[in-house]
């Protein structure tokens, strides 16, 4: 983390690197370089949001569309807070779009499951 970089949410000096997409089933970050600088309080707040949305736990072994949907959901949660102070409506819309894209993918996965659960074990799906 660049020590001079301000918190992406409130502009205070940043303390932590927040990993946008979280960890995978092996405990490693899915995208180690994809981080946002946050101060301690904002990091706690985002962590709380992620817990509230059940997105904080490491992602279990899942298929690629599920992984992408999970990453989009987590990114949306962060962006919705970034849009809060000062109000940045376009970031808010982007956060909403992230969630919508994630829902599309979750819906797609549900449709595939209903069609044939065997798709999950097909080559290249995880």
């Amino acid at each position, binding site marked *: 983390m660049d020590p001079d970089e301000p918190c992406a949410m*409130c502009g205070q000096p940043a*303390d932590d690197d927040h990993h946008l997409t979280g960890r995978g089933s092996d405990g490693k970050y899915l995208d180690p370089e994809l981080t946002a600088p946050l101060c*301690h*309080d*904002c990091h*706690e*707040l985002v962590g*709380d*949001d992620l817990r*509230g*949305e059940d997105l904080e736990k490491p992602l279990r072994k899942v298929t690629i569309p599920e992984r992408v949907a999970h990453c989009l959901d987590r990114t*949306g*949660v962060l*962006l*919705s807070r970034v*849009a*809060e102070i000062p109000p940045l*409506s376009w*970031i*808010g*819309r*982007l*956060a*909403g779009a*992230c*969630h919508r894209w994630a829902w599309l993918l979750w819906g797609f996965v549900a449709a595939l499951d209903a069609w044939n659960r065997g798709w999950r074990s097909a080559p290249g799906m995880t």
Partner: protein
Amino acid sequence: MEPGLALSTRYDVTPVPFEPLPVAIRVFAVPSTVEKEEREERKVSRKRREPQRSLVFDTETTTDASQRLNFGIWRYYVDRRTGLPGKFCVEEGIFYADDLPERYPEGFAVLLRYVETHESDVAPGRDTRLQFLSRSEFVEKAIWRKAHEHRATVVGFNLPFDLSRLAISSSETRRRKGRTTMVGGHSLRLFENERYRLRVDWKSVDSKRTLMSFTTAHGATDPTRGHFLDLRTLSFALTDRGHSLESACGAFGVPYEKRPVVHGTITEEYVTYCREDVQATAKLYTAAVAEYRRHPID
């Protein structure tokens, strides 16, 4: 350089030969207070600071003498600790009486249709689907999880009435662990299975004030009395006048006008009326807390 010659070369004085002696100095070192304070400050700021969570809700009831629950609306806010509460809504939903589908199927169908055709009014980027829960699910997911476990403040206008609508039965409060504060009040049973759940006790002090608290759940390791905020009481305390929701909004500069509806009959307009009521309650909550903070009490 030879010992003793340094001064002579720098200041051009006659060198006086001397023998170097080992010297020991004993000191009492006072640590730098600035550094210590900075360290302490850092330690405090690293402590986990919970955000402010608030559960704002309102209920609509039948219009007969029993005033049974028909449905209700809730909004859940998670705000940063340093700001005002009731700003960042993360969830909105409708809950309905457990027996509504059998007792009033037309009303239940209206609620179902409403949930399918309307979006929740939440902060940008949050789930825009209106949640739809039965009363039992609501007390489990909102009262137990949010208000008790996550220490959210339960907010309402005339809160004792709304809380009592959620109850499946009530009894007289009794002395609990030596505490007599609530004796003479009402103990509201919210959960069917009470073994690991709690009740809400409330006791009216006078027409404007009511004491409210959670009882201790069986086996609770971290019991809490909960945080309840009746805006009717707070608006009275801050203005010295009894208010309705509408007049309290007026007193605190929150624009709100109730839409005319027929009470007791569940229609789309009635649900929208209730949603607006809860939104106005949340805005009043923010405004009243801002006013309250202008008069700090140590």
